């Protein structure tokens, strides 16, 4: 037997012996916090029959029954337990904001230049689904704005299809004036709120 193999086997054998002696065997159910894809680190709270724990540091973990506070977890253990789940993570969604020349359904030059990027992103994704969501500012009646935002979203959908975009599923929606990017009072002209969002997943 070569050295490398014995080095691998001996610790495993020792661990399984220890495991056999320890009673009762510990269930290995836990949650570990990771850094988010955007580089930030959030927070999770685990509530179990044996307590509640807050985890707010990346690469720390707590048992799902809440019995112990969060403690550091090694990269090796994370890889061993979650390598397959991590490898199966889909491409992260992308979101594009498109703006219009005032009042109508004509895109600004800057936004029109984004269309090829959107189509390229859609083309590379397996099983891709796309939402096109129209938004307005708060000038005028809510109904009128909802209708205008839908008209803009539909115009973008038509344009993208015309340019050859093919998605597994496409939804065209309107959030009217109810989902403002920039919070404003009613009856406020705000060009940044007159937009269409394209979510590529």
């Amino acid at each position, binding site marked *: 037997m070569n050295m490398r193999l014995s080095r691998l086997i001996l610790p495993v054998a020792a661990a399984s012996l220890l495991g056999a002696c320890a009673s009762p065997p510990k*269930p290995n*159910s836990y949650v570990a916090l990771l850094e988010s894809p955007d580089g930030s680190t959030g927070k999770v709270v685990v*509530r179990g*029959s044996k307590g509640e724990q807050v985890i707010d540091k990346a690469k720390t973990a707590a048992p799902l029954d809440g019995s112990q506070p969060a403690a550091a977890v090694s990269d090796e253990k*994370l890889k061993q337990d979650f390598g397959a789940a991590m490898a199966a993570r889909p491409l992260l969604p992308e979101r594009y904001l498109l703006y219009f020349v005032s009042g109508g359904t004509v895109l600004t030059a800057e936004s029109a230049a984004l269309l090829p990027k959107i189509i390229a992103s859609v083309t590379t994704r397996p*099983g891709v*689904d796309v939402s096109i969501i129209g938004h307005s500012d708060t000038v005028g009646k809510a109904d009128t704005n909802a209708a205008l935002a839908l008209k803009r979203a539909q115009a973008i959908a038509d344009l993208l299809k015309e340019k050859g975009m093919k998605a597994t599923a496409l939804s065209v929606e309107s959030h009217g004036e109810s989902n403002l990017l920039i919070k404003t009072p009613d009856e406020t002209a705000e060009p940044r709120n007159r937009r269409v969002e394209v979510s590529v997943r």
Partner: protein
Amino acid sequence: MRYWVVLLGILFSLSINAADERSEPIGYVKTASGEAFVITAQNRTAAQPGTPVFLGSQLQTGAQGSIGVTFKDETVVSCGPNTELTIDEYLYQPSQGKLALVTNLLKGSLNYVSGVIAKLKPDAVAVKTPNGTIGIRGTQFVAKVEPEAKP
């Protein structure tokens, strides 16, 4: 007579609402390998990119399987082998403030990147497990449920 008409009307509209929520996919499979399935209303479908996922669906993998799903609100969920994950609650209507995403990890391993629902209404997002419930404040995390060894 009028009472019955009203009652029928209510039942009819309820059934339409239920049908709407059921028939609209809430996400799609993006990655699948090995034994990977989506079970919806007792129908088990071999998962592949583009397979739709509905409220109440279960993601299931075998010993060599894995699956990745992206939901409409941009929540990204992926599972390793020997996993069962059900989607118990899903509401995504930001314009009406209707937001919820509750999944249940019965066993196996999960990688979770939270999306818009967690951003807008963190209290409405949770992962249940047989051991405890994970509450999410906009983040990426992993969770593993190993069946309790019998003494």
